[in-house]
């Protein structure tokens, strides 16, 4: 899964609002249609990313949770 994404970002170990700030930074540098794989273990991580994608016209392609309760989300950058 990770190899499919154009860019990857690991925000493991930091809390709200740092994951949001870092994802917004990276998303700004990507072209529409590119994909971004984000991994984090903040309790609010998934809802933060869903809100971010809803407000900025990005698409969530897949969500997966691993054994150490870190969530990995693949998003496609919107126009």
């Amino acid at each position, binding site marked *: 899964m990770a190899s499919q994404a154009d860019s990857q*970002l*690991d925000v*493991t*170990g*930091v*809390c*709200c*609002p*740092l994951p*949001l*700030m*870092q*994802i*917004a*930074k*990276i998303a*700004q*540098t990507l072209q529409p249609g590119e994909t971004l794989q984000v991994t984090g273990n903040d309790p609010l991580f998934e809802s933060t990313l869903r*809100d*971010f994608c809803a*407000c*900025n*016209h990005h698409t969530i392609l897949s969500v997966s949770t691993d054994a150490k309760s870190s969530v990995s989300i693949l998003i496609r950058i919107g126009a």
Partner: protein
Amino acid sequence: MSDPISTMKSATITPKQGKRGTVLLVSGALDKALLAFEVAAGFQAMGMEMSMWFVLYGANCLRKPQSLYSPAKWFSPLRGGIGRTTATDHPLQYLVKGLNPSGADHLPLSQLNFGGIGPWIIRKIMRRKGMAQLEALIFGARDLGVRFTICQICVDAMAFSLPDDLIVEAEVKGVSAYYREVMDADYNATL
């Protein structure tokens, strides 16, 4: 754990929806400053164009760090700068400058300060939890494109020498500019 700020790239956020917001920080307390910067940086990251205004003690968090016990904090001459009128300076401004905490590192808590132990406890917990410290939030907000503005009469009364005394770039404006921004904005907060 990677350093939260160094992983960010240098491009600023350009808002997509054309929404604007302002946060006015009056308080010099660590808890309120943290909240103001979290809201401003978070909203900017969500796509809103944020502008932060600092008046009175709120500007203390933007000052360069200086210990309360350093002679330079108390005795260095009052200097001119953007928005300053040095002709009307008063010696009591040395006292105002010295008594106000310099830098995000030295802010007290609004409650449970315990003479400086409170902020130390809060910082320790936040570091342990991987939360952003105030300095990191200030630089993070700046990197995301949040604009900082300081009230001109506060700059003059508290004898800030801009831009030398601040850790970030800030504009110096008055209430008319604040009015225009507030009326244009979709979100306004005062702390």
